[in-house]
């Protein structure tokens, strides 16, 4: 139970006070009316005695009466009837509201911090009013009148007669039996004669004389002269007087209902200016609050208004001075001490005497009857017929009641001990008589008296109270008494900190018949729970909700709202969502009906925004209600700023901003650059890739350096992009803001008329204009078109929110009704900062300027279209496409460049090549190559520098400049240029990124350049696999010498064989029927293909699926003048009748772009060698180099092919080229780069690798130092019969392949150790010197003449000489056996 202003003792004392009636003459009434007060009202503020009173009890003990209060009421006052009383009480409660900003009492219980109003003044008011309006009952005398004041004005002609009249009147009222009210304590009521004198009017002398007369007649103790109205009302209006009546005002209204008629007309609610029209509104959803309930509340302010209007102009007590106040106070004191207390004392004595005398009698009588009837409990009076459900009813003067009367008197004068004893005795008597009502009353008062006894406190008999309550309620069916008893008991229990019992008691009293009482008692019970030693928070909350429910049923909306709000504190945020939603919903409703739409909206908002577990139907209902409330609120406020909407959930951080216009995607066969669009997902790797590309192109544009101010262009900003800078937007180009809405509800929501909310700080005048894009369900994209430069801030979004349900019957109407307009702000937080220590320890977020673009002056805007751009290519296929650049802005653009991740994929052609701008359509079926008709013969040779193809140094040309006429693309101009594409070497889908870079012709500070992105996907399918091997031409050397003696001197050992293996590895899906090898070209700085030496002579090399062909070529060293530093020699060997000029666009472009030529790779080798050399001795180093050199070639083979493809019943011819780089003699090279294939999973190693063993030139490598060649006649005729020995001259040619001096040992001896060789080789022997030691200079060719001797005819292998070589400088090194010669067979014929 909440804290009260009064202590319990005070409260109980004040609940039971001596009652005094007042009977006024008309004149006297008129005198008091001057103060706009009746006589009882006039006295009321002074009815509490400040001084102590004394009286003696029957035992002559002095009883001290402290702080006694008397109740003075008009004799005609009736306790209100039940319905009336209900109204009054409910009114009293509703008027009494918790003050605004009431002392916040924070109770901490467990993990709950509850903010609860500590006091419940409305309950106290209710209690007070309730107790005072209790009708006087038969069974108790506490509120029966003890005395009657007869008031007569001194102005009266004959006051004495008037007194007589009043006295008779009083007698008539009490004794005639006509009146059931009022009730009188006992027959001889104390009459007190008061002469009221109006000082301002009356004659004081006369009054005094009348008073003297009265004294004579009634005795000094029975009369009084009261002088009031010291001044006339008009004079003292300006004077500030204390108004002691104000706090008794509402009591006035209760006790004299005649004076202030209460208006409860229904019309009031209709005429009320602030009346809400909602109860009659049919559209109000599920309006279950009845209208009658509303009325109490609605009339409340009206009532208040009427009271204030009544009081303010005519303040009470205007004719009274402070002296008059004192007079009245004195009068009351005089009355009480001289009149009332002695009267009571006398009565107590009388009653006591009666009881004592009767006691003896009754005892004897009792014993007699007991003897007679055998102890049967028969009532001694024959009043059994009066027995009703409540037990007996005694007549008012019944002797049984005397003791009760005495007890009541004692109680009233605070003699609690005696009172208790009397009550106790009475209780026993009544119980034995089965007079249950009386017994209950006695029990109740006995308990109260026991509690109030201060001296020797006996334990408070709570069970008395329980029994009393039960009896009142169940037996007597008197709820009022039960309630009074309950309130008293609960109050007492509370004072003894028995909160649990008090709560139980209070909860038991909640019944269906009175909502107001139930509500108040439940609330008190809730307060009991929270005040327990270990507070029961949840019980508190639960009972608060019950109380709130009852309050709302009783029409006490404010109280209901307060209860729910307090309960919410417990349920809030504890996951008890169902309960929380219920509470919030109720709060919303109540707030709304109380015209607190903000609170209502907030409460509904809570239900909707949290992840609700309610059913869809329930949610829909909540939503409708919310929309309704919200709408009515917005109608009320109707100011410019729109309120915030909670729905749907707006994910601010996921907002994306896109700068740039909407592009045409495709136009006929034109295919626009993909650029950036909002439909793409953000990819960090990809954006990093673009950023690098842009950096490279900017570097190129700025002659190699990236400016410090460089920032990558960001067209689409999202949460992952770098939003620290203010983004730049160009005037007249739209800004698209994409917002992500999420509907957490299970019901659809309809958003319409979305528009952005923005603020613009113009550098110039006028603002941008907003255009709304159509609505997407989850993503809303809104477009903003700035017209002036300046700073723009996008603040939020404004939209209409409605239910997504479509009513078929009245769809549009309902939609209009259930649609509200509101806004949501876009508040974007940057990423959390986590750099410095301070930032790490605290939670700080960086700025995010995504929505604050700066509008810059116009910039050029490029659009790029691709024409005939393929999606699928064969590996190595060459295709010609066209690209169109359009400047769609009003500003010329310049400095157009393109960067790509795959520069080898495309080329715009070299600057030298003559661009024949054929229209793309005409060029469709032409070959992409430049061709010249020429029969197949020896290779044609041309020299080309790579610089001509934009290939500088070793870098791959990532950035390419696009030539523009006069370097500028004017506004609206378009430029079409051809573009060659080459299918990637590896099959699969390739993502190729183009970044087009361009600048404005005039340099603006803000935006230095712009970029356009394009991503193309190319699906490459397998075509041919080309493998090439180069091998030393050992044997060919001799023959060559014979045929081309002229050249021999020049390229001594400068020729080799190139074998090209071509396999069709195409899978038939692509519809490729066959491949034709059209031409094989070479490109190198030192070597060139010389001629085709295919043994079969099959010129037309067709390759059907899975076929393999082999081509054999002879390569020679370039001539000295050709083999200069940088220029590459292209040699074309066409197999058909058309020669493709490989040294021009596009063939050479792709050749250079494919990043081959041997230079970088050789560099790689040499550096690799260098790293090894560090560990080697100086000689080793030299050896390695030398040894390597001699087996090294750099020859790039370009295989040009045509593929015949059947597609849609049409035959197409596709062309392509494949590159193979030959590096080492004897090593096979493949068109597919081996590196990637070799990539395997590398084992995780935990120990550092053992350093690779010092690599000496391997034996295999060393064995290539010397090339040997035997020259001899193939067959030799010899007449063996004539001459048994046949001697054949043989020349052994030794050529040094290396660039160093080599020591050579030629050993002609047969290996004796191997008998097999003897057998195989038969018997021939070398003549002459069997071992030669020679020294060969660099690249020297040495001819050694030998003689072989044969003994008989046959076939012999001459390849037996073993050649050992070692580098001249490295003495320590053992000689290495050189490559054993091929079997050199000689046929010896016997003639």
């Amino acid at each position, binding site marked *: 139970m909440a804290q009260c202003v009064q202590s319990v003792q005070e409260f109980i004392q004040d609940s039971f006070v001596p009652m005094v009636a007042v009977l006024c003459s008309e004149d006297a009434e008129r005198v008091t009316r001057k103060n706009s007060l009746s006589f009882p009202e006039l006295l009321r503020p002074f009815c509490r005695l400040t001084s102590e009173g004394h009286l003696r009890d029957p035992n002559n003990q002095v009883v001290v009466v402290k702080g006694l209060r008397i109740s003075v009421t008009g004799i005609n006052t009736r306790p209100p009837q039940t319905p009336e009383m209900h109204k009054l009480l409910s009114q009293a409660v509703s008027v009494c509201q918790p003050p605004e900003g009431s002392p916040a009492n924070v109770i901490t219980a467990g993990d709950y911090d509850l903010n609860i109003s500590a006091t419940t003044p409305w309950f106290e008011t209710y209690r007070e009013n309730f107790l005072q309006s209790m009708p006087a009952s038969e069974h108790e005398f506490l509120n029966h009148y003890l005395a009657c004041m007869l008031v007569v004005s001194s102005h009266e002609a004959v006051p004495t007669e008037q007194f007589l009249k009043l006295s008779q009147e009083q007698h008539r009222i009490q004794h005639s039996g006509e009146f059931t009210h009022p009730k009188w304590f006992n027959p001889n009521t104390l009459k007190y004669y008061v002469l009221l004198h109006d000082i301002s009017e009356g004659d004081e002398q006369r009054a005094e004389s009348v008073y003297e007369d009265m004294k004579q007649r009634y005795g000094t103790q029975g009369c009084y002269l009261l002088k009031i109205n010291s001044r006339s009302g008009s004079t003292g209006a300006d004077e500030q007087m204390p108004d002691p009546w104000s706090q008794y005002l509402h009591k006035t209204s209760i006790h004299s209902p005649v004076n202030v008629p209460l208006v409860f007309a229904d019309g009031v609610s209709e005429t009320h200016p602030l009346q809400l029209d909602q109860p009659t509104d049919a559209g109000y959803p599920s309006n279950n609050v009845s209208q009658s309930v509303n009325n109490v509340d609605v009339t409340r302010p009206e009532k208040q208004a009427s009271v204030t209007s009544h009081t303010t102009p005519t303040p009470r007590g205007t004719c009274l001075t402070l002296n008059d106040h004192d007079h009245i106070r004195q009068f009351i004191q005089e009355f009480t001490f001289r009149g009332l207390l002695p009267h009571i004392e006398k009565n107590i004595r009388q009653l006591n005497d009666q009881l004592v005398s009767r006691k003896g009698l009754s005892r004897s009588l009792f014993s007699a009857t007991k003897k007679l009837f055998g102890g049967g409990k028969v009532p001694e009076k024959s009043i059994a017929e009066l027995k009703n459900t409540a037990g007996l009813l005694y007549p008012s003067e019944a002797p049984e009641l005397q003791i009760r009367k005495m007890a009541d008197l004692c109680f009233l004068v605070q003699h609690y001990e005696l009172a208790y004893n009397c009550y106790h005795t009475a209780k026993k008597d009544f119980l034995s008589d089965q007079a249950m009502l009386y017994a209950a009353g006695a029990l109740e008062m006995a308990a109260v008296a026991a509690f109030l006894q201060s001296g020797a406190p006996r334990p408070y008999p709570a069970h008395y109270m329980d029994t009393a309550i039960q009896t009142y309620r169940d037996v007597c069916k008197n709820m009022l008494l039960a309630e009074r008893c309950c309130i008293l008991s609960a109050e007492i229990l509370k004072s003894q900190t028995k909160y649990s019992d008090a709560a139980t008691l209070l909860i038991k009293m909640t019944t269906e018949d009175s909502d107001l009482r139930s509500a108040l008692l439940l609330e008190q019970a809730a307060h009991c729970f929270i005040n327990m030693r270990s507070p*029961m928070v*949840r019980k508190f909350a*639960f009972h608060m909700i019950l109380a709130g429910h009852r309050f709302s049923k009783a029409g006490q909306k404010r109280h209901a709202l307060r209860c729910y709000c307090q309960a919410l504190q417990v349920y809030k945020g504890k*996951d008890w969502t169902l*309960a929380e939603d219920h509470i919030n919903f109720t709060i919303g409703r109540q707030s709304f009906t109380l015209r607190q739409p903000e609170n209502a909206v907030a409460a509904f908002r809570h239900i909707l925004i949290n992840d609700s577990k309610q059913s869809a139907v329930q949610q829909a209902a909540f939503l409708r209600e919310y929309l309704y409330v919200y709408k009515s609120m917005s109608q009320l406020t109707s100011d410019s700023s729109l309120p915030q909407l909670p729905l749907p959930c707006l994910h601010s951080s996921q907002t994306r901003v896109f700068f740039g216009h909407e592009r045409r995607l495709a136009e006929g066969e034109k295919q626009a650059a993909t650029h950036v669009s909002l439909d793409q997902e953000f990819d960090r790797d990809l954006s990093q890739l673009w950023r690098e590309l842009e950096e490279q192109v900017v570097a190129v544009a700025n002659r190699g350096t990236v400016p410090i101010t460089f920032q990558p262009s960001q067209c689409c900003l999202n949460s992952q992009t770098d939003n620290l800078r203010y983004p730049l937007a160009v005037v007249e180009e739209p800004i698209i803001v994409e917002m992500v809405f999420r509907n957490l509800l299970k019901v659809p929501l309809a958003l319409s008329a979305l528009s952005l909310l923005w603020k613009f700080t113009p550098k110039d005048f006028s603002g941008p204009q907003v255009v709304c894009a159509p609505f997407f369900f989850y993503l809303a994209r809104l477009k903003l078109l700035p017209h002036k430069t300046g700073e723009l801030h996008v603040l939020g979004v404004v939209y209409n929110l409605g239910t997504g349900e479509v009513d078929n019957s009245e769809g549009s109407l309902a939609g209009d009704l259930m649609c509200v307009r509101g806004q949501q702000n876009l508040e974007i937080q940057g990423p959390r900062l986590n750099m410095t220590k301070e930032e790490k320890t605290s939670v700080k977020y960086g700025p995010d300027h995504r929505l604050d673009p700066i509008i810059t002056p116009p910039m050029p805007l490029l659009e790029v279209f691709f024409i005939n751009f393929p999606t699928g290519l064969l590996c190595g296929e060459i295709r010609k496409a066209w690209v169109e650049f359009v400047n769609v802005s009003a500003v010329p653009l310049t400095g157009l460049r393109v960067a790509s991740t795959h520069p080898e994929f495309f080329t715009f052609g070299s600057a030298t090549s003559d661009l024949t701008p054929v229209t793309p359509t005409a060029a469709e079926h032409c070959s992409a190559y430049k061709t010249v008709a020429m029969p197949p013969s020896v290779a044609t040779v041309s020299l080309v520098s790579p610089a001509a193809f934009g290939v500088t140094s070793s870098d791959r040309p990532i950035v390419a400049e696009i030539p523009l006429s006069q370097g500028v693309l004017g506004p609206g101009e378009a430029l079409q240029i051809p573009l060659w594409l080459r299918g990637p070497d590896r099959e699969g889908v390739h993502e190729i990124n183009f970044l087009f870079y361009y600048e404005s012709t005039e340099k603006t500070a803000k935006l230095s350049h712009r970029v356009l992105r394009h991503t193309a996907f190319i699906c490459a399918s397998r075509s041919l696999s080309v493998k090439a091997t180069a091998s030393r031409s050992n044997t060919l050397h001799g023959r060559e010498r014979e045929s081309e003696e002229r050249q021999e001197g020049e390229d001594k050992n400068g020729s080799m064989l190139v074998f090209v293996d071509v396999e069709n590895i195409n899978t038939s899906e692509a519809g490729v029927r066959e491949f034709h090898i059209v031409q094989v070209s070479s490109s190198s700085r030192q070597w060139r293909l010389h001629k085709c030496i295919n043994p079969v002579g099959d010129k037309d090399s067709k390759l059907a699926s899975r076929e393999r062909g082999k081509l054999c070529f002879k390569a020679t060293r370039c001539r000295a003048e050709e083999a200069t530093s940088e220029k590459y020699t292209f040699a074309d060997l066409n197999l058909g009748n058309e020669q493709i000029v490989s040294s021009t666009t596009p063939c050479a472009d792709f050749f250079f772009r494919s990043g081959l030529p041997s230079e970088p790779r050789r560099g790689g080798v040499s550096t690799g060698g260098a790293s090894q050399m560090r560990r080697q001795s100086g000689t080793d180093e030299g050896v390695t180099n030398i040894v390597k050199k001699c087996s090294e070639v750099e020859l790039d083979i370009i295989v040009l092919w045509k593929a015949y493809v059947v597609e849609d019943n049409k035959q197409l011819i596709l062309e392509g080229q494949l590159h193979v780089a030959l590096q080492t003699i004897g090593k096979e090279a493949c068109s597919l780069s081996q590196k990637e294939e070799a990539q395997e999973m590398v084992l995780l190693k935990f120990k550092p690798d053992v350093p690779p063993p010092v690599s000496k030139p391997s034996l295999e490598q060393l064995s290539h130092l010397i090339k040997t060649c035997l020259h001899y006649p193939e067959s030799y005729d010899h007449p063996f019969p004539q001459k048994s020995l046949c001697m054949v001259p043989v020349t052994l040619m030794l050529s040094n392949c290396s660039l160093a001096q080599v020591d050579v040992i030629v050993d002609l001896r047969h290996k004796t150790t191997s008998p097999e060789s003897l057998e195989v080789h038969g018997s021939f022997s070398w003549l002459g010197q069997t071992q030669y030691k020679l020294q060969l200079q660099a690249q020297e060719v040495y001819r050694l003449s030998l003689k072989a001797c044969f003994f008989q005819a046959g076939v012999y292998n001459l390849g037996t000489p073993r050649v050992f070589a070692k580098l001249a400088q490295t003495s320590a090194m053992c000689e290495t056996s050189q490559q054993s010669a091929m079997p050199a067979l000689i046929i010896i014929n016997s003639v």
Partner: protein
Amino acid sequence: MNCDSMNYPLYIRSVPTQGELKFHYTVHTSLDVVEEKISGVGKALADQRELYLGLLYPTEDYKVYGYVTNSKVKFVIVVDSSNTSLRDNEIRSMFRKLHNSFTDVMCNPFYNPGDPIQSKAFDSIVSTMMVQAF
């Protein structure tokens, strides 16, 4: 039926779904009684405390039973007063089953203590118990 640790609901299930709100209120309010009972046992006996708390309080229509694990996770079972088939022993075994099942849930490494229980196994245990009981 309900589990609850820091007095946040971990799991609530009721068989007649229409009166769910009422049950939520009942269960929530019963937590006060549970706490009272726990604190009433006293420190000395706390370790050998009986987990089963018995009938928390009877209302007009329902009987509310409580059970508290040693880690202060509360189980509350509300049954219809008219249901006489459920004796104290049955309720006790129901609680034990619930506790076991709850332990299983807690053993799930992916379960974050304090989150609402969304385990299917737990669901089915509760369902079978409810089917048996009612």
